[in-house]
């Protein structure tokens, strides 16, 4: 009897205290806050891309000023990793295990991203929109990773297709950054040319620390190409085009989205960027796209720092965060990581500042179809004053051949 009473009392206690205990909350979410993290190079050689993380921050400020998402404000944790993977890893771990981040967004660079990919995936932490077009984001497939930036291979396909079919070019060469970014482009160009029965006449690697581009241009010039693809950063691209001008070598230059900020490229090349054809993943900065007008007014004019330029990389920070914000809204008050994944998977033909974005329920055998959100690019040509002429409409590409 005594035992029975004790058991009954214990059961009653568990029931009473069990009711009053809070439901185990998701990491990085409180009643009033959602903690989102991002890294971005604010110093060092990749610092020009630092505006991406600042753009995201200003976008979140706009959302918070409008009341947040379902009654919660976004608390944004951004840190400078200097494009150094060791720093990225340390910073992500520190924030994840110290503060507790609900989800990560964007984050510049393949190498920094690769340094934390496995860590985030093992912990089942959603990461939306890594800021690079590397195949590493879908190979291998990851349930919690949602790439948005179109693959570099797609850039290659679009550029080669246009140069062969519209411009009639036959002799192609490439100057590529000797890392994952450049090698993805090289692979894409090789495969795309193969489709037309063509081969690269020169493949010239550029090391990030190379300052003098004369030997590179000499190699390109010797191969006598009529079109040269540039899979490098803006400074190297300008140096290659400038050195080529000095060496009286003038092929059709084709460039990736990394050098599609035409006002900047025209300025630093002293006008030499005119006529360059580039692929791009976002609406043009001066286009009459209603979202461009809205963000320029509501985000850039209200929240950007004084010297922040309204350039493609600044608003790429918005573009890469838009699907996350949309999915957070769809989650309602019941915000868990699993719910966020489900809502992201439900995004179909979502249209923000870039091409349409769609995800599907996870299928490890079809990572491109279920996890690669952005699959569209369009081509632009640089005109006087850094203006852009649209050469194609948004075009869908499959990365498989």
């Amino acid at each position: 009897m005594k035992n029975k009473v004790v058991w009954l009392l214990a059961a009653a206690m568990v029931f009473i205290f069990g009711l009053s205990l809070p439901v185990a909350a998701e990491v990085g979410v409180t009643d009033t806050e959602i903690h989102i993290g991002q890294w971005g190079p604010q110093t060092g050689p990749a610092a020009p891309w630092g505006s991406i993380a600042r753009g995201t921050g200003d976008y979140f400020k706009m959302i918070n000023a409008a009341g947040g998402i379902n009654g919660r404000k976004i608390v944004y944790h951004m840190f400078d990793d200097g494009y150094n993977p060791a720093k990225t890893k340390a910073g992500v771990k520190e924030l994840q295990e110290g503060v507790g981040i609900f989800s990560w967004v964007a984050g510049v660079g393949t190498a920094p991203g690769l340094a934390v990919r496995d860590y985030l995936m093992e912990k089942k932490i959603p990461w939306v929109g890594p800021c690079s077009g590397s195949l590493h984001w879908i190979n291998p497939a990851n349930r919690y990773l949602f790439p948005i930036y179109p693959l570099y291979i797609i850039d290659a396909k679009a550029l080669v297709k246009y140069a062969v079919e519209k411009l009639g070019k036959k002799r192609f060469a490439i100057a590529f950054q000797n890392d994952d970014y450049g090698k993805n482009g090289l692979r894409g160009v090789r495969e795309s040319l193969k489709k037309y029965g063509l081969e690269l006449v020169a493949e010239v690697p550029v090391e990030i620390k190379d300052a003098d581009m004369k030997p590179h241009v000499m190699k390109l010039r010797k191969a006598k190409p009529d079109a040269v693809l540039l899979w490098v950063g803006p400074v190297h691209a300008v140096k290659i085009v400038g050195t080529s001008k000095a060496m009286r070598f003038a092929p059709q230059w084709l460039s990736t989205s990394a050098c599609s900020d035409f006002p900047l490229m025209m300025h630093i090349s002293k006008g030499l960027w005119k006529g360059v054809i580039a692929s791009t993943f976002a609406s043009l900065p001066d286009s009459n796209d209603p979202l461009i007008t809205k963000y320029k007014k509501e985000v850039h004019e209200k929240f950007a720092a004084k010297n922040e330029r309204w350039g493609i990389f600044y608003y790429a920070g918005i573009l890469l965060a838009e699907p996350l914000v949309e999915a957070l809204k769809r989650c309602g008050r019941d915000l868990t990581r699993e719910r966020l994944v489900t809502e992201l998977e439900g995004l179909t033909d979502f249209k923000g500042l870039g091409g349409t974005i769609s995800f599907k329920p996870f299928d490890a055998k079809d990572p491109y179809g279920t996890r690669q959100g952005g699959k569209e690019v369009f081509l632009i040509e640089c005109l006087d004053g850094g203006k852009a002429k649209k050469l194609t409409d948004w075009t869908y590409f499959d990365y498989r051949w």
Partner: protein
Amino acid sequence: MIVSGIAAGSTYALMGMAMVIIYKTSEVPNFAQGEMALATSFFTLMLLEQRGLPYHLAFPAAFLFAIGLGCLLEFAVLRRAKEPSVLGFIVITIGLEMILMGLVSWKFGADPKTMPFPISPYDSIAIGGVFISSLELLTLFVALVLMIILFIFFRFSKLGMAMKATQQNHTAARLMGIRTNRMLMLTWGISSLVGCTAGLLISPITMQPYMMWDPMLKGFAAAVMGGMTSLPGAVFGAYILGIIENLFGGYVSIEFKSVIAFIIIVLVLCIRPSGLFSRHYVKKV
């Protein structure tokens, strides 16, 4: 390839000479040299673009700024260090390098920029099928003229002799009435002026906070190769470095173009530790 090497070597030569000048008097390899040039280059950009100054005012103002910056760093930082070892000095210069780069990034942002310049960096002349840009020709000319001026200055002028005396025996120089502190300060000023010409001649192509790191390293390497105390040695080392880099990049492997420079330096230092142009210097105890 050789012409390109000479063109690339001219920038290294200017940085190398700037480092040698400081080393000659204080035996400190100044790792802030590149960023001192960086600060001057961005200051010049500000004068030209934001203040709208014409070239004939902006460039002399830049030279004065460079001299002032060099003198200030010596007076405000280096002189305050209490009995530092060479290692301590090196750490101080690395710290200064980081501070200057941080200040430039903060003030001017990280976007690449370009400096207006009287001649286009992309115009060139062709000599027998070899193209050389007018900016490269100018850099070559400036490097050689500065080398001659500095050589004459240190060999024949009173001030130059006083600077050399300060390096060779600080106490004796002081006893002979040389104001050694002032000499050191002036050395930093002159070195900063020489270094800034390298920065100003790179800036018409592209400018970014990281732009002086490579020329500084290569200039330092050239100076080490030349013996660290010899101005013609630094210039010779710089041209050898530029030529070998280009030949290697053109005929062997473009991926290892930058690395080859340092392999050669290691080899030179193994065979001739005091450099190609320096006499073995034995310090009396």
